[in-house]
């Protein structure tokens, strides 16, 4: 039941240790990683903003909902903020469960739900501009660089 918004690198081993329990037969780890491209654009880096206290509150609500809904045993949800380079992890969702099926289902549901509800925002920064992304998969419409208009 560990949640965290942090500007430090996310530690997979810490997350796994946090969810380990003797009755767990499966651990699922999801890492959201900064890609070098998005919707056809070449990304230089990302900047994440967050409302940390509310983000952690919503993460905890979603984690508890996953326990009720899927019967998972424990969860750890970390989100990083600040400037992230290509290849760095922005989101780390780790689940322990008795069996593999619910670890994949709950992990997928949790990641989808986090992207819809947790108050965190990313700004894409390219060579010729930058833009706050609005919504989980949007191209964004504000402040598009000249080359995109």
């Amino acid at each position, binding site marked *: 039941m560990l949640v965290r918004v942090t500007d430090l690198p996310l530690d997979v081993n810490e997350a796994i240790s946090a969810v380990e329990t003797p009755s767990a037969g499966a651990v699922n780890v999801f890492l959201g990683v900064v890609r070098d491209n998005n919707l056809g654009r070449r990304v230089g880096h990302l900047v994440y903003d967050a409302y940390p206290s509310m983000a952690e509150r919503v993460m905890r609500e979603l984690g508890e909902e996953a326990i009720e809904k899927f019967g998972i045993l424990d969860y750890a949800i970390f989100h990083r903020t600040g400037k992230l380079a290509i290849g760095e992890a922005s*989101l780390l969702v780790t689940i322990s469960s008795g069996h593999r099926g619910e670890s994949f289902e709950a992990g997928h549901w949790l990641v989808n739900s986090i992207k819809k509800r*947790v108050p965190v*925002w990313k700004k894409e920064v390219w060579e010729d501009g930058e833009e706050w992304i609005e*919504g989980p998969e949007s191209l964004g419409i504000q402040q598009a660089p000249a080359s995109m208009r």
Partner: protein
Amino acid sequence: MASGAGWSLTIRRMTVTILLFASLAEAAGTRRLELAAEPGDTVASVRDRVVSAHPQLARFVPTLMVAVDEVYATDDDPVPPGATVALIPPVSGG
């Protein structure tokens, strides 16, 4: 000490704190505003006063969510004096 604590409590009761993030913070040039609380304030009335004071935020309103004291709220939900109101553009974490 006791009277100092009472004084700061009085101040909090008179205002509503507005938090801005991401695109809104950039557009407003700040991450935090204080508004005088008014009787009967709702999410809608507070948001309208923010936009009156910072018209450059008007274009964000159609897609904005609002949280009162860290809980998502709808237009008619009350905003008590001392509350923290966050203006939340569509989230894009992960």
